[in-house]
């Protein structure tokens, strides 16, 4: 066997046994209740639909400011009401706010230690 073929086989061998796990295999399972929507909640959300709402892009632009408002203990419902209402409607944006707040807190805690 040539050294080139041997090298290829060794790479394949290592690749087989040291495959990077797929990202989906690292995901924590989500409890089914977190993924289902309640119908009355949906109808409530529909009833509160406004003609003029912020979309996800506009909300994202303001999310860092929103997070710092919460960090300071101020009321974002008063200071950024349209963002507040979008976050009550949009699960993805709400998740990102939650994760952002956790990131800020984690950064502060580890920086202190």
């Amino acid at each position, binding site marked *: 066997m040539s050294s080139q073929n041997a090298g290829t086989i060794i790479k394949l061998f290592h690749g087989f046994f040291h495959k990077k796990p797929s990202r989906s295999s690292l995901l924590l399972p989500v409890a089914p209740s977190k993924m289902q*929507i309640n119908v009355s909640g949906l109808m409530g959300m529909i009833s509160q639909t406004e003609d003029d709402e912020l979309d996800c892009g506009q909300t*994202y632009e303001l999310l860092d400011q929103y997070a710092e408002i*919460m960090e300071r203990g101020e009321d974002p419902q008063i200071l950024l*009401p349209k963002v507040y209402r979008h976050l*009550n409607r949009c*699960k993805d944006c709400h998740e990102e706010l939650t994760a952002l707040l956790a990131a*800020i807190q984690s950064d502060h805690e580890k920086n202190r230690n």
Partner: protein
Amino acid sequence: MTERDNATWLQDLRSPGKCRTTALADLRKILLRGLTGALKNWVRQDTREFLSLCEDFIQEALLIILKHLDDFQGLSRFTTWAHKISVRVALSELRRARWKDYSLTATDEPGQSSSVHEPGSPDREQERVEGQMMLDWMKKVMREELTTRQQRALKAAAFDGISADALSKKLGTTRNALYKLLHDARLKLKKRMLKEGFMKVQEESDPDSERKPPFEVSNKGESRE
């Protein structure tokens, strides 16, 4: 690690050479500290692949940050703005991975794959029946009022709980365009609800009335109100 204010971050990241390299290294550490906290409820952290995954996300986030330095307006801390970008990168990717096997089908009726669930209330027969009636009404109205694309999107988002990120990819559109599609759908359904007397006019005019959001809300990181 050097403490920097917003102006110093921008200056250092725009400078050539060692100044920029050091600033990037510091920012990488800060983002890593943040992501390990942000992804606690998303990814198993007890594997050696977790750090590698975070590094991948941070690398992508740093590229976006450097490309969009001029967009930073200084209305928050620079590090908060940077954390926002790295969280968006990470969650977008994880959502796509979570929902990669979800299939959009035009023939599924909304609610077919979801059960009626009223969080926080006991599993009583009357509530279940009422919930089913509401669901049946919703299905009927969606068929009558919405386009096929709107029905499909609303069913996926509202009944199957798929994330907007993942759904927009599957529909071949952007998250903003999807939001507008669903917004238009909600406006149509609201008009129908008004017409059929499901809503009173004073409910309509009070968007800040305290209502539960239609999805489960985590208490982590919520405002201290």
